[in-house]
């Protein structure tokens, strides 16, 4: 292991300034591409947050903490009972993933609806803002169209243990800088 770290330091010293700048640019490209892909997803799905991580057990046994959900939020898609929606309560940051229990839609398309977590005994009225009885289209972040289990655990870990997040970012940065192509 000692030999390995010496080689690594030698590599860094051997890179002249031009190569270093090149690697930094490379790194910048990767970050921009990732951002572009994310923004592109936002446009295609119509959702401000096209991929979300399930944070609670209120939709078990369908979804567990750490599952990843893929959302769309197209205005043409009407909200109907049985759908799984991700919504935000006014004034709160954390999105909630629950199922639509009841809808009342007017002729002009205005809709108010009620949600409930599969694993909860009662509907979500108690979670809504004080005095708020229904959710509206504006509260919706998106509709769950597909999912992948477990993968989101990484983001939960990074959130709960910031040291872990810095370690991951540091290692990634190091890897990109040192990897010569």
């Amino acid at each position, binding site marked *: 292991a000692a030999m390995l770290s010496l080689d690594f330091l030698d590599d860094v010293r051997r890179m002249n300034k031009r190569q270093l700048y090149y690697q930094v640019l490379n790194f910048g490209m990767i970050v921009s591409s990732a951002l572009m892909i994310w923004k592109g997803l936002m446009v295609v799905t119509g959702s401000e947050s096209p991929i979300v991580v399930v944070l609670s057990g209120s939709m078990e*046994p*369908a979804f567990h903490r750490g599952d990843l959900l893929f959302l769309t939020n197209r205005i043409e898609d009407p909200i*109907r*009972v*049985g*759908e*799984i929606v991700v919504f935000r309560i006014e004034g709160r940051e954390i999105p909630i993933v629950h*199922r639509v*229990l*009841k*809808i*009342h*839609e*007017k*002729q002009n398309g205005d809709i*108010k609806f009620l949600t409930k977590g*599969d694993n909860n005994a009662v*509907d979500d009225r108690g979670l809504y803002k004080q005095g708020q009885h229904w959710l509206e289209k504006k509260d919706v972040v998106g509709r*769950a*169209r*597909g*999912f*992948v*289990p477990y993968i989101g655990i990484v983001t939960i870990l990074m959130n709960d243990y910031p040291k872990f997040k810095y370690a991951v970012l540091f290692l990634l940065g190091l890897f990109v800088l040192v990897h010569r192509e």
Partner: protein
Amino acid sequence: LRKNVEDFTGPRERSDLGFVTFDITADILNGKNGLQTYRNKNTLIIFDWNVKQLFLYLSAEYSTKNNALNQVVLWDKIMLRGDNPRLSLKDMKSKYFFFDDGNGLKGNRNITLTLSWNVVPNAGILPLVTGSGHVSVPFPDTYETTKSY
């Protein structure tokens, strides 16, 4: 897929509350709604290797003066892979209160009950499927005040 219902309405505060009792006979195994049926195989087609569970729900859909479209889930059930795919439930009461947003249940002749389900895979797309065989139910013109539930 068959459902039989009786119904009553009762005013609570200012919104109509409907009471529905129903029987559900469903054969999820042989559903013909967008899912293929294999005639000579004895396998659970709907519950394939990638289906973790089905979230079944019975919903009532109707129109009122106040709202062009109303949908209320009356009952739901989670059916895991491995559970008996044939449902035969009799005299079920609705799990959730069937409140209207206003007084649109009284005299409403056309409430449609449909059984649908959300297919939850182990990983992948989450489709919503509607069962065939919905039932239309009328509510009476008067309120029942003495019905015990």
